[in-house]
């Protein structure tokens, strides 16, 4: 991964931030390019996300304004107060269904180095509202860039000191050292996302295999960490029944279903404008060229397929886990 970073853009404002300096030290050969605001590089029009994905750069920036936001309705795992925050924009993996490609113009990784400001905002929200959930893997994968960002390494001690703040780390990554090296936190859930083998092979470029993810989740569970399972997006195919049944069996061969913290399901769906951008980037992708429909501004599988998949997967999963851990998600997620 580190070999891939050849350019690092650094906002003038964070040039001397200790996290910036530590990251720059890790990439002595990368070209350093100063910029005033990350948007000058990241938000420019006429950029091609797919071309940039060949060789993304890293942008180190400060997150200004409100850093922790209420989640959209339909996003959550049962808590009453739900917030999300993005210490990073974009992801080292390349999932063809990922809504980030529709949302951002650039594939560069933006890392907001002012973790301390996120933490103080989370602390104030919790002090004001009491028990609250904070979702970290919305605009990125929470752990995929951990060796570079030290995100978990920094945030886990913070959450350890704030028991009313609950953290979800949403990931497909398998480097879990930052978690395994410390005592598990009762207010943190590590949520692993899965699609079946066939969908993984076709749609998830650079993502660790399903079996490696299962192994990583099982190791964490054995070490006492709470594990969540995210089947989001559900991908329709002729053999979806066998594929999902096989996936669930593989997972519960390794994980103790009784200890699973939460399970959420969500069908593939994207806002229309995001979908159009995604389609332009990958017209040869079967998923995007296939039968999809627009409903209420969202593009998704036909309603009957969605219902079939959700019903089937719910029934199958109920063989392993209780209803109380189930959540349906209606917001695009990765």
């Amino acid at each position: 991964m580190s070999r891939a970073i050849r350019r690092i853009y650094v906002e003038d404002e964070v040039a001397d931030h200790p996290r910036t300096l530590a990251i720059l030290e890790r990439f002595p050969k990368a070209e350093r390019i100063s910029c005033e605001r990350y948007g000058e590089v990241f938000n420019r029009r006429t950029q091609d996300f797919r071309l940039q994905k060949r060789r993304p750069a890293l942008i180190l920036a400060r997150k200004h304004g409100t850093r922790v936001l209420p989640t959209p309705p339909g996003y959550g795992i049962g808590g009453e107060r739900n917030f999300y925050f993005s210490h990073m924009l974009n992801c080292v993996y390349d999932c063809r269904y990922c809504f980030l490609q529709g949302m951002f113009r650039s594939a560069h990784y933006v890392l907001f180095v002012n973790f301390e400001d996120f933490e103080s905002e989370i602390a104030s929200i919790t002090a004001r509202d009491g028990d609250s959930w904070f979702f970290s893997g919305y605009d990125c994968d929470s752990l995929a860039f951990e060796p570079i960002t030290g995100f978990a390494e920094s945030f886990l001690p913070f959450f350890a000191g704030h028991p009313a703040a609950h953290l979800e780390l949403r990931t497909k990554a398998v480097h879990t050292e930052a978690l395994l090296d410390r005592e598990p936190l009762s207010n943190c859930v590590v949520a692993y996302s899965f699609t079946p083998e066939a969908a993984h092979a076709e749609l998830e470029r650079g993502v660790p295999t399903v079996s490696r993810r299962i192994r990583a989740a099982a190791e964490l569970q054995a070490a006492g960490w709470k594990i969540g399972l995210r089947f989001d997006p559900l991908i329709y195919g002729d053999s979806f029944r066998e594929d999902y049944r096989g996936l669930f069996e593989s997972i519960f061969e390794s994980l103790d279903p009784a200890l699973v913290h939460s399970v959420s399901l969500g069908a593939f769906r994207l806002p229309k404008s995001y979908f159009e951008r995604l389609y332009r980037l990958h017209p040869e992708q079967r998923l995007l060229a296939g039968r999809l429909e627009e409903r209420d501004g969202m593009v998704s599988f036909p309603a009957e397929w969605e219902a079939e998949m959700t019903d089937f997967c719910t029934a199958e999963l109920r063989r392993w886990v209780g209803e109380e851990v189930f959540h349906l998600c209606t917001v695009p997620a990765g």
Partner: protein
Amino acid sequence: MIRIVTALAAEARPIVSRFRLQPDGDGPFRLYRGDQVELVVSGIGSSAAAAAVGYLAGAGAGRASAWLNVGIGGHRDATLGTPRLANKIVAAGGARAWYPPAVFEPPCGEGAVQTVDGVESGFAGEAVYEMEAAGFYPAALRFATAEAIQVLKVVSDNRATGTEHLNGAKVEELIERNLPVIDGLVTELREIAEFLDRRSAPPPALAEIDQRWRFTVTQRRQLERLLRRLATLDPDRPVELDELAGAASSRAVLERLRSRL
């Protein structure tokens, strides 16, 4: 097609000869064409470079294109002849900056390029100082995606050796020496242009069907999307005119194609 803009004829000459370009027409800018490369000599300055981009975009042949600005510039202390691929371009006065992304391994060192309005001798910063990039780059952005636009500057003067030593022959020699780098960039840019071309190429059978029936603008867009989707979903069964032969209207054509999804 790769479209190259140089300010000076002396900068252009080695490139014209390397790619066997032929002079073309007698328009407001000197233009050269070859199979894969077109070149225009813009004259000195940002505005001239921007105008030359517009001219070449209008006069050029081919579909998706990539753009390259090649020229000389001054640097504080870099050795004469050093090539620099621009990773940041700052307009004169510092009011605006652009950051050309490199989605390939650059064939030479990279750095900032500072566009100035006149000859620079102070060289306060680390950048290469020159006079066109900040005109060329935003103009080319109107015609291509950022990844397909690059700026290459060759150091022609520095604090120790000023511009007074420069003449046409010397400029030619500096560019000539960097032809391998220019070659490398052209190869990378050609690959990008071909990728973009392939991705946006009209789907098979579009032109024939479009000619046979009368489609509204919206229907034509639908037709194109349907044919593209079918080419992805059913690549072994290309759409044939025969299978649409009995369709009485453009709407019926679209219906038939839809039924194959």
